[in-house]
């Protein structure tokens, strides 16, 4: 005790007291923390919604309205569901850079955790399609041939035979499906983003969606084998004709010019 009182006027005493006080406060907080944790467990969802709303206010509200009710610049998000948010933000389409015929895919700047929070907030506005789990969209063991048949029946009229993409009216387009993740393909079918019609489970059951995903992964992927050589974009006879004219006939004319330039000459003696 003497030692303590002897040093009570030491220049560092105040600092020590402050540290002790802080430690005590921290300890007290730690003591109360379990109760706080229990509360958080109950409202993990609400916390995500809370965080999502913050992200929403920054990135989305200017077009979709402060409460997701929609404005003249963007549609209402009530009832679009978390799957729509996961697709639109996950592929970088949303937040949109500028208005236009169609919002293009671009680099996504949100982390998956942030996307989940945004999705949680938008899902809280009204019931809609839920972000699929890997079990739902994984193409493992799906029927590729049947997927191809379904793709040609339901998708090819806009996306082309193998999903190379195609034009729609007034500058809109069906984007190419090369290297789109199975999750995003699934979500697009589920929610019908932008100009695409939606294919809910009542119309196209989960298994058929998997078949289609498996087909796209087989025929339109970086690893897809092209047994005929370079695919020239896979968009059909237009690129083939252009190639045939420029490189086919072009090189033959070059050869003809070369042959004509090398003619027999009269021998000079």
């Amino acid at each position, binding site marked *: 005790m003497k030692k303590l009182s002897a040093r009570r006027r030491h220049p560092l005493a105040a600092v020590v007291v402050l540290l002790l006080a802080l430690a005590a406060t921290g300890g007290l907080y730690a003591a109360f923390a379990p109760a706080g944790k229990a509360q958080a467990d109950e409202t993990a969802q609400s916390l995500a919604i809370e965080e999502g709303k913050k992200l929403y206010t920054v990135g989305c509200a200017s077009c979709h309205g402060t409460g997701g009710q929609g404005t003249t610049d963007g549609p209402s998000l009530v009832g679009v569901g978390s799957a729509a948010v996961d697709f639109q933000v996950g592929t970088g389409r949303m937040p949109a850079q500028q208005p236009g015929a169609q919002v293009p895919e671009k680099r996504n700047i949100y982390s998956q955790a942030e996307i989940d929070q945004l999705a949680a907030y938008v899902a809280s506005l009204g019931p809609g399609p839920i972000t699929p789990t890997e079990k739902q969209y994984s193409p493992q063991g799906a029927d590729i*041939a049947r997927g191809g048949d379904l793709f040609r029946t339901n998708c090819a*009229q806009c996306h082309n035979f193998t999903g190379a993409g*195609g034009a729609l009216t007034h500058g809109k387009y069906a984007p190419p499906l090369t290297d789109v993740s199975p999750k995003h393909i699934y979500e697009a079918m589920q929610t019908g983003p932008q100009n695409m019609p939606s294919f809910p489970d009542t119309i196209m059951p989960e298994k058929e969606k998997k078949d289609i995903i498996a087909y796209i992964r087989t025929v339109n992927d970086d690893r897809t084998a092209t047994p005929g050589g370079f695919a*020239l974009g896979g968009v*059909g*006879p237009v690129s083939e004709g*252009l190639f045939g004219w420029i490189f086919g*006939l072009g090189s*033959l*004319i070059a050869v003809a010019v070369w042959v004509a330039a090398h003619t027999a000459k009269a021998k000079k003696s």
Partner: protein
Amino acid sequence: MSTTTASDSKRKAPAGERVADWADGRLGIYGLAKANMRKIFPDHWSFMLGEICLYSFIIIILTGVYLTLFFHPSMNEIEYHGSYVPMQGIRMTEAYASTLDISFDVRGGLLIRQIHHWAAVIFLAGMFVHMMRVFFTGAFRKPREVNWLFGFLLLVLGMFTGFTGYSLPDDLLSGTGVRFTQGAILSMPIVGTYISMFLFGGEFPGHDMVARFYSIHILLLPGIMLGLVVAHLILVFYHKHTQFPGPGRTNNNVVGMPLLPVYMAKAGGFFFLVFGVIAVISGMFTINPIWTMGPYRPDQVSTGAQPDWYMGFAEGLVRVMPGWEINLWGHTLVLGVFIPLVVFGLMLAAIALYPFIEAWITGDKREHHILDRPRNAPTRTALGVAWVTAYMIMLVGGGNDIFATHFHLSINAITWFVRIAFFAGPVIAFIVTKRICLGLQRRDRDKVLHGRESGIIKRLPHGEFVEIHEPLSQAQRYSLTAHEQYTPAEIGPTVDENGVERKPTRMQKLRAKLSKGYYGEGNQIPKPTVEEYQEITSGHGHH
């Protein structure tokens, strides 16, 4: 002649000579060889465009024969169990299944298929360019009008042979193309439905289409084409080849190299070069990957469905035409398809008839073996460029969706551009081309009279700077002035020598008007005369 008698056969002739003698005794080859072995052909790369077509045609026939060994022209439905996984278990016609087999299970099948198809694309493109060469150099003039028509028929038959071949695999892309054609047939008033029923053996698509197209594709059309190719070549031999103007070249001679050995070697070598280039392209670049398209089913369709390029302008005509139709007395006249069909026919007919129209305007009955330089026939050249412009614009129309996606444009904007440009483009092209031709004629005239600009600047004693013009050689001056310039046809005096009034017919008036447009003042630059040249070079110093 080779009438070897017993008396002079003491020494034994070499084997080759004996074989030749044997053949001559039965086929008369010595006479043929004597007449043709030393046949002269002029040298110019553009004269080899026809060879590209001939060789690619031969390649198509050779590869086509190989394909017939494995292709089943049948529309019986079967389930696919070949080696291409994404089609396993899909129901399809035998035609499609056998094309998949050719692509994946027949040794060399895919390469041969691709050579066949690439060669067809190049064959048609080659014919197009060959025809443009003949057109722009005026090689279609007398005596070659009939050969022009043969060539024209080859182009049109080539288009339809290509179309029927493209339809054979019965894949979703080609089926869409056949459906398109059936729509065009149906749009013909009165006869359309009958022709469609006759062609497809009932309702589209029926079960006969592939087998019928097969015999058309491998027998009927190529048979006619082969005959036309032979006739085309015989006429080239008979007329002798045309040549560009130059010293020593007249309408009555051909300056060049003999068929044997020079052209035999060149042509033979060129064949292998053509085959080689096509084989390399076919080995490296996919064409018509039917395995990605799936079997044809009338309830399925894909975007980006186009025909091969040579049918592209027909596709364009239909794509950009507004969907007009007239409904009267329970019948529909689909103008949206029928008008394009008529325009398609008119655009082709325009090429076929042009030599006769020009001959009528010039009234020239003489033979022409010296080619025109395109600039020296400004109106013809401008008309040709106008036609090509219309054609190219329609190709853009035919690929409007691909242009939309790849250039990030609105498909509607492209369609409207094509609609306007189809009418405005040829007019602009005509005017611009004609001005360019006249400008080039002026330049030629200038070169002949004043010589070539040497780029050397000389300062005269009194300080003036002049550029030294080097006079052209006599040969160059000859080449630049060898062309003939027509004077516009006149209607002639409207009163004859007896003072009786003569009324010119409407055709005469039209001809005079067209002739003036071709050869009147301002539509060609008078070439320099000898007097003009002498006056300038007679020593009055520099112009």
